[in-house]
């Protein structure tokens, strides 16, 4: 029988019933390996439910540091009878099936081409514990112990993690350690004849990286970035942004003397009220944000148009999920690009930030708040469920204490008294961004009426054609100014010259890194550009221009980023080849490299008709 043998390079998937306490045990498994200096990237696959339905935790261990999803499972810890058949089917031949052998199962339930390891976990727990909740919880710790023994995970590392988790709770600590050793001992005594070829060996490949989910990172970025008002409505997968913001604010934002809050968080009655509150707060000079997902953005579009046209700073964190409509609430996609870039009726364009991991979620949240104030416009932080709800290894957060918030162009009472002209919607600096005043600035100067209707540069209601054209053209000018202010794209050049390029963004990045390597091995080197924002910097058009074909890799059905590139940069559609993954699972390196390879090989067999070299594809 084949046995998969791999050191520090494999995928273990845990299949559990959600609500059974498995999440923290599985996280322990992942963290223990991290503490041994080997990079891991775990992913939750959970149902749209609270308790009783299946949930999976897929841990990729990769000494090389590949953090994207791999596809293919080397070991399945099958703890959920409900999903047994599909879990067993998913295993690679030669892989390992670890299961609870308390109840006998028919031979037909097993596969002859995988290595089956049974441990009577329920029986052991029932013999050791009498409390039903303990029996359930410690079953999970039991298998962590057994796996540690089988795979070479250092128990001392796990015990250290326990001591940190249960600091001050001695009894819990003791009982968890006991359960751990129960599992270790059982495996040592009874499973020695079931050797597992998947081994963990201590390395030093993690460095000083941190392990955190994207939503918490974004929330912390909002704290550091000076957000004071957060209005939100619960929706999967963005609720934890507001929850993390709440808990960070409780820690960091209370006046040390009075205990009063230097922030206001309101759980509004719906997304419309949420964005309404953010708009009111932004209008009145507070840094305000909301966090939501696709369906919430749909509800918010009227207000987004108001904030755009009345020029009010507003920050929206969109943790994208499977769409359209209610879609796949617990699956990931990058399918809101068009609906956010052009949100609301009429001619609109909005700034999008595209973080790739929790570190960038932190950075971009703070940048978004600055940009919203500076540009006086809605700014979207576009993450997704994959980044938001999974713990990811990333570079540590950084902040410079000398950094000051960019509050943008706000006229003070002194400015008004000094005779500065106040014309709310007039371009005076050449960048399309006017000056605003906040309520209560000056006794008699600077008051004006904010509306969603058209106006002249002095905020007076006007239906005159020239006034309207001046206004909307200035908004385009402002958007153009944004191009040099938003995070710039990052290019990774191929080891040798190539006529092929690839563009990607967001959560695609870890798999893209790996795919580029696979493609080089396969003889297809690519220059790759990772977009980090919209509108597009000049470098994007230059990149496309410099290549004959550019693969646009994204996680939606309709190639939305490709559409934005064509629309904004006037690129010939034939030049941009869509590589699309949209089944709700995170994109893999295998998928990307196979799709690109297929296209390249097909081209070799049957090349596209000769095209005239097009030099004016880019404006």
């Amino acid at each position, binding site marked *: 029988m084949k046995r998969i043998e791999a050191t520090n390079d494999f995928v273990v998937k845990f299949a559990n019933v959600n609500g059974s306490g498995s999440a923290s045990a599985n996280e322990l498994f992942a963290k223990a390996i991290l503490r041994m200096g080997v990079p891991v990237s775990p992913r939750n696959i959970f149902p749209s439910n609270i308790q009783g339905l299946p949930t999976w935790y897929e841990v990729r261990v990769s000494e090389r540091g590949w953090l994207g999803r791999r596809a293919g499972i080397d070991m399945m810890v099958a703890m959920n009878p409900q999903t047994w058949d599909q879990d067993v089917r998913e295993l690679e031949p030669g892989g390992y099936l670890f299961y609870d052998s308390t109840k006998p199962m028919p031979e037909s339930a097993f596969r002859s081409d995988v290595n089956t390891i049974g441990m009577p976990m329920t029986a052991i727990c029932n013999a050791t514990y009498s409390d039903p909740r303990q029996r359930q919880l410690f079953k999970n710790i039991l298998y962590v112990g057994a796996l540690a023994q089988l795979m070479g995970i250092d128990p001392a590392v796990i015990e250290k993690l326990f001591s940190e988790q249960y600091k001050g709770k001695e009894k819990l600590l003791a009982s968890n350690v006991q359960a751990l050793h129960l599992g270790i001992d059982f495996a040592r005594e009874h499973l020695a004849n079931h050797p597992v070829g998947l081994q963990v060996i201590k390395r030093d490949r*993690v460095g*000083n*990286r*941190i392990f955190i989910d994207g939503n918490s990172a974004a929330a912390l970025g909002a*704290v*550091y970035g*000076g957000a*004071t*008002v957060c*209005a939100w409505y619960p929706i999967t997968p963005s609720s934890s942004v507001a929850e993390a913001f709440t808990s960070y604010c409780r820690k*960091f*934002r209370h*006046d040390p003397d009075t*205990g*009063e*809050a*230097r*922030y*206001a968080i*309101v759980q*509004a*009655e719906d997304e*419309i*009220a*949420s964005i*309404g*509150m*953010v*708009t*009111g*707060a932004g*209008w*009145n*000079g*507070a840094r*305000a944000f909301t966090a939501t997902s696709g369906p919430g953005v749909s509800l918010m579009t*009227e*207000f987004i148009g*108001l904030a755009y046209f009345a020029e009010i700073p507003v920050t929206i964190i969109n943790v994208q999920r499977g769409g359209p409509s209610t879609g796949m609430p617990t699956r990931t996609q990058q399918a809101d690009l068009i609906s956010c870039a052009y949100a609301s009726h009429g001619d609109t364009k909005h700034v999008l930030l595209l973080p790739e991991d929790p570190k960038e979620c932190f950075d971009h949240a703070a940048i978004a708040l600055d940009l919203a104030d500076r540009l006086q416009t809605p700014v979207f932080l576009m993450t997704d469920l994959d980044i938001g709800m999974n713990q990811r290894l990333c570079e*540590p*957060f950084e*902040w*410079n*204490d000398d*950094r*000051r*918030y960019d509050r943008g162009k706000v006229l003070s009472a002194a400015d008004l008294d000094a005779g500065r002209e106040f014309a709310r919607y007039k371009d005076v600096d050449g960048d399309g961004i006017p000056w605003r*005043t*906040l*309520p*209560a*600035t000056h*006794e*008699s100067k600077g*008051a004006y*009426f*904010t*509306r*969603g*209707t058209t106006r002249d540069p002095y905020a007076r209601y006007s239906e005159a054609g020239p006034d309207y054209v001046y206004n909307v053209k200035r908004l385009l000018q402002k958007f153009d100014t944004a191009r040099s202010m938003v995070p710039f794209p990052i290019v990774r050049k191929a080891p040798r010259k190539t006529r092929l390029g690839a563009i990607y963004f967001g959560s695609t990045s870890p798999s893209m890194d790996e795919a580029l390597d696979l493609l080089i091995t396969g003889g297809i080197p690519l220059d790759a550009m990772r977009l980090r924002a919209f509108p597009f910097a000049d470098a994007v058009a230059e990149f496309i221009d410099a290549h004959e074909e550019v693969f646009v890799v994204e996680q939606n059905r309709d190639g939305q980023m490709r559409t934005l590139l064509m629309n904004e940069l006037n690129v010939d559609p034939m030049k941009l080849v869509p590589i699309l993954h949209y089944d709700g699972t995170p994109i893999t390196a295998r998928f990307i490299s196979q799709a690109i390879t297929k296209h390249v090989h097909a081209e070799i067999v049957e090349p596209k008709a000769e095209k005239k070299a097009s030099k004016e594809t880019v404006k």
Partner: protein
Amino acid sequence: MTYLAKPRLHHPTLEINKVGYTRRDYEGKISTLCAGCGHDSISAAIVQACWQMDIEPHRVAKLSGIGCSSKTPDYFLGASHGFNTVHGRMPSVLTGANLANRELLYLGVSGDGDSASIGLGQFAHSMRRGVRMVYIVENNGVYGLTKGQFSATADRGSKSKKGVVNADNPIDMVALALQLGATYVARGFSGDKAQLVPLIEGAIRHAGAAFIDVVSPCVAFNNHEGSTKSYDYVRQHNEAVSRIDFIDLAQPTEASPAPGESIDLPQPDGRVMRLRKLRADHDPTNRLAAMALVQELAHEGEVATGLIYVEPEATDLHRALNTVATPLNRLDEKSLCPGEAVLAKVNAGLR
């Protein structure tokens, strides 16, 4: 005539209030509403109340939705920032603005179209949440700006200008506000400024969300025979349940009314609201009684006006959130940013 600019000079004999302003300083642009529109009287009452309370105009923020009534903030308090938002969503924008700066006075002006249909949810939740504001609904039973459709407050059986009879039951915003726990609930009539101005004054002083439903006849579309929101109808069916004055108890200027006829309600700023009962059975501090009274009167086809219910010790959203006294929009990096050292500790805890 709106093409005439308002003259800027003030008559030298115009009275000046304690902050140095005449009543003219509280006005805005010339109204573009129909001649005789009830809303203009409400604007005048707001101007009167703000002037006599010595409020500094620039320390007021005026927010509105969309509709004829929502246009009115342009016609008063010209030195205040205003925000004409979107249909039915003024309460959320006002809430956010209030959170950003708790020191200002927030006036939310809306209509029955804006607040009783599309805005019903936001109206309800703003009452529940207790945002400190003056929420005025200028209620004429129709959509004026879009030319005369029934609104949700139009009475069943009332007739539109074109003779269509309304078959739907009306929403009574006062009854709803009481049900939702609002702490200052009043109804006024644009045709009775003597009653309305003190109601607005009380609302401004109130520490929580203050709601005033002001019946304000639409002369263009709902002032005819068959309307229950016309000047004639309201005058004939107005059941005023109270009158209020604001007094300094320390300086009694008139003989106190007989016991049982009035209630003295201390205000957060130290003054006292003296509420004179016009109906013996009206106790404005008893919510259940107020709810019953409103229903009874409505059943009789009467319009209950006056201060219907008040909780003098009401609290507001800022107190519930325990926010700092300094407005949030004035806090800087020192107060808001935890800093590098803290971040290093956070990082350490994530390894």
